[in-house]
């Protein structure tokens, strides 16, 4: 099993451009999450999904959008990229919401906006 796969690994964008960060998992997990990690800060939740067709905002959703058309995929869309969105983005999935079902993470997308 590949687990959680994120693409691309690195990307540089110009201010105002748009892009989609891809996340796919092959563990048949219903729950999926998008986080951003900034230096010296904890992981901050952007959006999450409890199943196909169901998404909701996390702590820092402004400037982002998500969709969940299948169980496997949970893409994160940046519209009108801004320098404040320079960060490392992590996708995670879990079998369920319980504390006995830990989240499994991909290796991240490193995004710079210049």
């Amino acid at each position, binding site marked *: 099993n590949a687990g959680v796969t994120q693409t691309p690994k690195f990307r540089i964008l110009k201010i105002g451009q748009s892009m989609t960060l891809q996340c796919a998992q092959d563990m048949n997990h219903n*729950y999926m999450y998008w986080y951003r990690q900034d230096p010296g800060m*904890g*992981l901050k939740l952007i959006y*999450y999904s409890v199943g196909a067709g169901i998404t909701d905002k996390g702590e820092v959703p402004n400037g982002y959008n998500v969709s969940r058309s299948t169980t496997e995929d949970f893409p994160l869309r940046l519209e009108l990229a801004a320098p404040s969105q320079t960060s490392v983005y992590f996708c995670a999935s879990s079998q369920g919401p*319980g*504390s006995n079902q*830990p989240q*499994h*993470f991909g*290796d991240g997308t490193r995004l710079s906006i210049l």
Partner: protein
Amino acid sequence: EDQVTQSPEALRLQEGESSSLNCSYTVSGLRGLFWYRQDPGKGPEFLFTLYSAGEEKEKERLKATLTKKESFLHITAPKPEDSATYLCAVQPYGSSNTGKLIFGQGTTLQVKP
């Protein structure tokens, strides 16, 4: 407000020098406290879940403990391969249907040979 604070921010140890990392939390009811390890350029890797005060879990040179206000990650006789950033996260009762976690900022551990 639910909050997680980790200390120290960075820790340098000599190989074999045991120490502890701290995770203090304020949460409206704790469903679980998680420890993750993160290597440079990689995503967090799950280590432990603790559920109630007094609980302990061990894995190789790592032992995690939990009280009502904090958790410790004890590292016994560390080796250079234990160098990583260790993240602590809590799941409040209010997140029981969503699985949402609140993360601390992490402790970066460097073990020198």
